[in-house]
């Protein structure tokens, strides 16, 4: 098995000791929705509030100084984690807010600006987007009169790139794509798409919610313009997300949220704005959460992203093999391990995912059921919902065996009644 000491890792996550629906061990297979938090993250948040709490970047007192240092220290950890420059990492409240920040900033650009989007322009997304990387673009298209177009998804659950040169054309201003599908587990090949986007002068926005927590993403080497992800899916607290953007773009774009902390000078009539990151961090930020995210990154670094990824591939391999032995079960998404992350969606003939999820819950197994905030993708696969198991560093082969066994038991339960 992998080189991870799973017993030691599990011991760091107090919630994994919970007993569920009677006396079942908690088997948490819903990290794609949100991850659990290790003690070190919980401690970092508490320590911030208990010992250092003050509004960052304000006040001349010692606490403010300490808080600012911790907050900026957390930013530096994110910076290193994704290979960015210091002034390119913006704290938001979530990936959803990060993506909206880009969409609204572009929408706020005035005529003549290089960021201005107007009728006749095109915004390109894909059929496998989470609603968080679809609706903000639908709305931007609606507000500006631009056209929304999208990549299709193949039966196998891969991005259909066959019409890329027509889809991303000279009118295209933005291409927004997920790095890894939260439903299918598919990892999208970015090279061809970023190359084409930049050829036509479009901005490339990457939804990295499902990738950054699980394997090394170096924002400079993948040649994208913006990256969004959430802290809570990578062992961090809720309420903190990241927006990364190329410095020269961020400094030239209009702000999204405006108010305190993001201004340079203010008169009653108007204001000028600071450069990134502060330009996009109006108001007192979610400080303890950012500090918690810093601790989460320390934890991930300590274990090692490469080892985490290798471990998840192994779990996924076992899950795909095990689940496919079950009668009437079909995998929705790639069945091989090529360019694929630790997310497995499936359906069983005659059993609705909600019913299957309910039965699994009785065995202590937490999975996600439903449309996974990807309604158009569900339609693409002619269904309204799937059951999804998603893995992280604290899962082990026993968890996978329990899943396979649980699904088989649930299948029998509904078949026999």
């Amino acid at each position, binding site marked *: 098995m992998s080189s991870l000491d799973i017993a030691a890792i599990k011991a760091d996550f107090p919630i994994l000791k919970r007993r569920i629906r*009677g006396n079942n061990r908690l088997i948490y297979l819903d990290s794609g929705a949100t991850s659990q938090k290790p003690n070190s993250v919980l401690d970092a948040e508490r320590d911030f509030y208990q010992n250092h709490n003050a509004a960052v970047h304000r006040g001349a007192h010692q606490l403010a100084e300490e808080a600012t240092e911790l907050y900026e220290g957390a930013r530096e950890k994110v910076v290193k984690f994704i290979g960015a420059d210091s002034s390119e990492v913006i704290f938001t409240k979530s990936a959803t807010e990060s993506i909206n920040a880009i969409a609204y900033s572009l929408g706020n650009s005035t005529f003549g600006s290089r960021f201005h989007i107007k009728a006749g322009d095109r915004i390109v997304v894909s059929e496998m987007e989470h609603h968080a990387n679809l609706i903000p673009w639908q709305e931007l298209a609606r507000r500006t009169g631009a056209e929304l177009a999208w990549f299709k998804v193949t039966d196998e659950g891969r991005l259909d790139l066959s019409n890329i040169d027509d889809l991303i054309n000279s009118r295209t201003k933005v291409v927004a794509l997920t790095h890894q599908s939260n439903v299918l587990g598919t990892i999208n090949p970015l090279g061809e798409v970023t190359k084409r986007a930049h050829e036509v002068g479009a901005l490339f926005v990457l939804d990295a919610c499902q990738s950054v927590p699980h394997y090394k993403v170096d924002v400079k080497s993948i040649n994208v313009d913006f990256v969004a992800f959430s802290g809570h899916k990578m062992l961090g607290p809720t309420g903190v997300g990241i927006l990364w953007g190329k410095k020269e773009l961020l400094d030239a774009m209009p702000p999204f949220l405006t108010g305190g902390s993001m201004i340079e000078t203010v008169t009653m009539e108007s204001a000028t704005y600071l450069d990134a990151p502060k330009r996009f961090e109006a108001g007192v930020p979610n400080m303890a959460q950012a500090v918690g995210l810093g601790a989460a990154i320390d934890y991930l670094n300590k274990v090692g992203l490469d080892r985490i990824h290798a471990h998840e591939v192994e779990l996924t391999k076992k899950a795909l093999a095990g689940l496919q032995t079950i009668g009437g079960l079909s995998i929705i998404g790639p069945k091989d391990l090529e360019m694929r992350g630790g997310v497995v969606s499936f359906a069983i003939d005659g059993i609705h995912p909600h019913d299957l999820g309910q039965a699994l819950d009785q065995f202590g197994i937490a999975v996600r059921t439903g449309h996974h905030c990807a*309604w158009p993708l569900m339609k693409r696969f002619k269904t*309204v*919902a799937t059951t999804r198991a998603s893995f992280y560093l604290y899962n082990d082969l026993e968890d996978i065996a329990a899943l396979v066994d649980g699904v088989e038991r649930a299948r029998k*339960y509904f078949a026999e009644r």
Partner: protein
Amino acid sequence: MELDSLYQEVILDHYKRPLNKALAPNPDAQVHHVNTSCGDEVTLNLHLEGDRISRVTWEGVGCSISQASTSVMTDLLIGKSKEDALALVEEFQTMLQSKGKDTGNEEHLQDGVAFAGVSKFPARVKCALLGWMAFKDALQQAVKK
């Protein structure tokens, strides 16, 4: 197993053999309701004859709870007066929101009492109410016409 209290025989029967599941044409009202958290859908056609619910037909996709509950509802409400039908919807809703305390009046709700167990599973209450809320909506629309 606790699951049995949720998945009563009656529920699975209605799920496998749903009643009135085929939309009758020319309704007095048609509504389409979805459970936004899971994507379950019900389209419901309502026919009235004066004060009486003459037909309730439907189409839908979803979990056993939402589909069976809609089936049970049609069987219960067809033939009732508007007023009685609404009272039954209220009674069913109250039972489902009781967190397991209200086991339901079988004389009134008939097969509907099988859903009493659902009230202990907060995430599933919406499933059980999907068709009933669609009916209530359809009735309001039909009356307005």
